[in-house]
């Protein structure tokens, strides 16, 4: 699948492919032309991805070929044991978690999981967790704390599921409790937005010592589509809504609502997933080294202070 702004690049890449094919078939030397075309593609890519609008970043964050939580976990860890269930109601397939080993270090990984085809998407409920998902996440976090293992959460959700049963089982309470409990976790917590970070559904596993965003992701209080429908009373203002919400990684860093941005390969995480995994892994290890050198109580107080400073108010 190609997004609008990916098409001109894909067209050139197709041309390059043809040219190379022609060269092998007809034994004509086209190396100069190939080189020129390759240069042209590189420049076009650079220009395109440097100038994406906010809405285009949102589109990229939802690219169907983008790596999802389990892809990252399997890509980063040497071993991974998935753990299931909230011990109360059931197991939520939209929220996954378990212990993984990274260069000899045990880490608790938790994140929302999306599906790749229709069947999987249904099974994963499009990455929209129910209360039992948030409760499973909390159970696993408490377990990590018990065994003194750090926590890494990977966030990729269009929101917490707005369903009837979700309300009956206390969606609001489940998220609220996670926020409060996560502040008091004695182990280091790193949260990384890897795709979509929509509202309370994202925040429910995103209270950490370091909150990072991949370059082509978004994080805000509402999706641009829902914002458009509420404020403009129409679904047609999603581009304006995305601009107004200032929801990209760069925006969020500028607003000091996140701690850093992790660069993606040119063209997005899906174009070179291996490279993405590698840089993500390196970053996680670096952050854990930093955080583990701080005393647990001090780390908790820094976590609380960081979030307490967020917001803009004026004393009139």
């Amino acid at each position, binding site marked *: 699948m190609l997004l609008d702004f990916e098409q001109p690049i894909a067209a050139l890449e197709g041309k390059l492919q043809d040219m190379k094919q022609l060269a092998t078939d007809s034994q004509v030397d086209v190396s100069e032309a190939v080189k020129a075309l390759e240069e042209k593609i590189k420049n076009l890519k650079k220009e395109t991805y440097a100038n994406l609008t906010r809405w285009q970043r949102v589109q990229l964050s939802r690219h169907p070929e983008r790596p999802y939580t389990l892809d990252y976990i399997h890509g980063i860890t040497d071993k991974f044991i998935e753990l299931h269930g909230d011990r109360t109601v059931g197991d939520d397939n939209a929220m996954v978690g378990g212990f993984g080993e990274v260069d000899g270090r045990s880490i608790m990984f938790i994140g929302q999981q999306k599906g790749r085809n229709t069947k999987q998407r249904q099974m994963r409920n499009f990455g929209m967790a129910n209360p039992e998902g948030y409760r499973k996440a909390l159970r696993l976090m408490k377990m990590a704390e018990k065994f003194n293992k750090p926590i890494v959460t990977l966030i990729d959700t269009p929101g917490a599921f707005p369903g009837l049963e*979700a309300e009956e089982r206390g969606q609001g*309470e489940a998220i*609220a409790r996670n926020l*409060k409990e996560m502040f008091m976790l004695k182990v280091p917590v790193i949260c990384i937005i890897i795709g979509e970070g929509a509202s*309370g559904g994202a*925040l429910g596993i995103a209270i950490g010592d370091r909150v990072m965003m991949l370059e082509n992701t978004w994080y805000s*209080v509402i999706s641009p589509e829902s914002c458009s429908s509420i404020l403009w009373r129409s679904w047609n203002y999603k581009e304006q809504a995305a601009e107004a919400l*200032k929801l990209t990684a760069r925006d969020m860093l500028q607003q000091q609502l996140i701690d850093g941005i992790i660069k993606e390969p040119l063209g997005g995480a899906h174009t070179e997933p291996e490279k993405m995994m590698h840089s993500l892994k390196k970053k996680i290890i670096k952050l854990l080294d930093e955080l583990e050198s701080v005393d647990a109580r001090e780390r908790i107080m820094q976590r609380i202070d960081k979030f307490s400073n967020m*917001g803009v108010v004026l004393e009139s």
Partner: protein
Amino acid sequence: MPWFKRVEKGIHTPTEEKKETPDGLWYKCPDCKTVTSMVEHRKNLSTCVKCNYHDRIGSREYFAILFDDNQFTELDADLVSGDPLNFTDTKPYPQRIAATQKATGLKDAVRSAYGTMNGQPITISCMDFSFIGGSMGSVVGEKIARAIDHARETRTPFLMISKSGGARMMEAGFSLMQMAKTAARLALLAEDKLPYISLLTDPTTGGVTASYAMLGDFNIAEPGALIGFAGPRVIKETIGKDLPKGFQSAEFVLEHGFLDFIVDRKELKQQLSDLLAMLRPESDGKDNLKSKNGKAAKVS
């Protein structure tokens, strides 16, 4: 033979001379349609005399109900919203704020104060739905956080009265993080072992439900209040079916185990006082239980 005789013919009152009842003298209950005088309605704390429907009220009324003799000291009354994102939808955010301030006489969607309730000191934050749907932006989060800090400093119980449609979209990421900020301060309040009572009133939804409103040691609600995470319209669109009657009402939320009890507004002050009195540390006012040698007697 008629009792009265019409002397003049064609008596009419022109429209402009017709006498009308001034607005605000009468109250018609939206639920049972009973009409009462506004004086009576207010005396009944804005609940319907016939069906007990709890009409929406704001911080001014709640403070008057709860604080003894309506005496209280307001906290952070001058905090106002900035416009960090230069947000414009159908109108610029600062204009929207200014217009709402003018219309409501409020600075933002929450007010905090401390005083005594039946003689017991208490810190209260109360939301105002009339201010952009009680939406939570930086000011709401900051004022609640500071009120919690005030409760911690003075070692008083904290009462939060929620009434909100959720986060304020015009502050985007900033409003989302107010959920985190308030939860952080509440975690510290809990560590200090101070009581936190969360009163959910009509309506309490969205990011407010998913943060401080659901984090009380005691979560209590007014009868019939709409309480939920997602709004009813969104849920209806998601599941493509009509919602059952009473869905997301306080009674429904109680039945599903997320509230401690539902309280009638007319009994609110007494009920809260009774509850807090039971939580007082053993040392206060329990001298009569001490045995002669000064050691606390066992209470069984």
